[in-house]
């Protein structure tokens, strides 16, 4: 039985097409359709319910020590409100999940994990936590809304006041108050656009949703579903757990080496990653030059040689061509390399492109 997010009624009211996803009932799209919603985020603004994401509090004198052991990134030097992404590895160097840790203040961290992995992550962390450090799963009490697109800043600034908005990318204001609603305003997202993610009490989430929809309407803001969330992240080449990484793929193969601090004293998976050495496979972008769409799990060939497998793929609405990400042998990862994907028994020509496919124009 799927759970409803605090915004379920709002989705039905907005005409959302509801599907089960990661244990929740969520809209895959609204009336504008996946392409319309995708374009709204690239050119104006989109509003997403991401309340299904999991939230875990990590507190205590040994909190940092535990984060540094559980995660591949380094959490030693962070300012209050700062966010930092990290894979979380198993002993074999595979990925348990990827997540974002916010430093709220000393000895107090807020962790956001993938919905489908929340219970697994919490159990994994509980089993490996040491010393004076407490973990608490607060997912059911927390709603999350993503406001994404070039107009996101203007819309939120009008509602919240410019001074409440976090100034830097990957930072958050943990003490915001928007029209009487206490919330966390975070400058993060999963679309490749500028934007914000707002964390707040589950019971306040519908009111915040309505406030944002109303305030953003003149700017072209529309509600967006899971379909656009996936096409946007693919176009921006952001990896997704279960696709570009899983418990058998190392973060180095996914191309997340900059979030893996091998110089750290120790972390779970470090020994395995050292033993494996330089990965022989890597994540690449593929532009489909033939006819068709390459989705996940398509074998990739160079001539008759199997050189890898696609991990996700779809039509990219803003770029106007189909693209995929794939895990392939390093020898064929150079941009410009021509390969073939096998789609339902048929060979389709693809070309290796540098990632990301889409990079937003810098405005400031």
């Amino acid at each position, binding site marked *: 039985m799927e759970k409803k997010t605090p915004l379920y009624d709002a989705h039905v009211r907005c005409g959302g097409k509801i599907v089960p996803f990661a244990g929740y009932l969520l809209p*895959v*799209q609204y009336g504008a*359709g*996946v*392409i*319309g919603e995708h374009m709204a985020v690239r050119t104006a603004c989109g509003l997403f319910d991401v309340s299904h994401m999991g939230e875990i509090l990590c507190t205590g004198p040994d909190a940092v020590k535990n984060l540094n052991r559980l995660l591949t990134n380094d959490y030693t030097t962070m300012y209050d409100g700062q966010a930092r992404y990290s894979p979380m590895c198993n002993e074999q160097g595979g990925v348990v999940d990827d997540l974002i840790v916010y430093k709220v203040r000393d000895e107090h961290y807020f962790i956001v994990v993938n919905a489908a992995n929340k219970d697994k992550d919490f159990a994994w962390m509980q089993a490996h936590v040491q010393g004076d450090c407490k973990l608490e799963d607060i997912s059911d009490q927390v709603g999350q809304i993503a406001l994404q697109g070039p107009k996101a800043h203007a819309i939120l600034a009008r509602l919240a006041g410019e001074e409440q908005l976090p100034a830097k990318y990957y930072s958050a204001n943990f003490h915001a108050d928007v029209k009487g609603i206490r919330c966390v305003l975070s400058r993060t997202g999963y679309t490749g656009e500028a934007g914000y993610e707002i964390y707040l009490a589950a019971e306040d989430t519908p009111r915040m949703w309505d406030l944002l929809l109303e305030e953003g309407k003149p700017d072209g803001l529309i509600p967006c579903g899971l*379909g656009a969330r996936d*096409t946007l992240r693919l176009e921006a080449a952001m990896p997704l757990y279960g696709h570009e990484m899983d418990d058998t793929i190392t973060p180095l193969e996914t191309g997340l080496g900059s979030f893996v601090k091998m110089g750290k004293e120790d972390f779970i998976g470090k020994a395995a990653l050292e033993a494996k050495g330089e990965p022989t496979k890597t994540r690449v972008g593929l532009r489909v030059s033939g*006819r*068709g*769409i390459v*989705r996940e799990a398509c074998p990739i060939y160079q001539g008759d040689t199997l050189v890898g497998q696609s991990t996700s793929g*779809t*039509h990219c*609405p803003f770029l106007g061509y*189909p693209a995929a990400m794939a895990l392939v042998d390093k020898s064929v990862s150079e941009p410009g390399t021509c390969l073939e994907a096998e789609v*339902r028994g048929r060979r389709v020509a693809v070309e290796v492109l540098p990632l990301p496919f889409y990079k937003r124009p810098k405005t400031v």
Partner: protein
Amino acid sequence: MKIDAQLKYSKSHEWVRLEGDTATIGLTDFAQNSLGDLVFVNLPDIGTEVTEKEPFTDIESVKAVSDVYAPVNGTVCAVNDALLDAPETINSDPYGAWLIKVEGVSGGEDLMDAAAYEAFCESEAE
């Protein structure tokens, strides 16, 4: 949802316009709405034999690939090439954007008329 009173319908949401022993085949409004934005259409070669209730091609929406089933038996005598570059026409004009025409039509005895198809769609939507 739009349903054209002049057409016959299959349970897999294709429409058929029968004229003599030829049939024009497309996807219904219900189908395009469930599939979402269409971004790619494959079409069979002229001369291909199609068999009732068996897939004769596939179409891709942003979300997924789906088979299209033949509502009748016959031989493909025309394909709507314009869809190759404009698959979204199926979304905007499902009863105008035909996929294939077949000749030597047989079968299709259990195709529904518009009223029966409308009732069928209502039961599917529940």
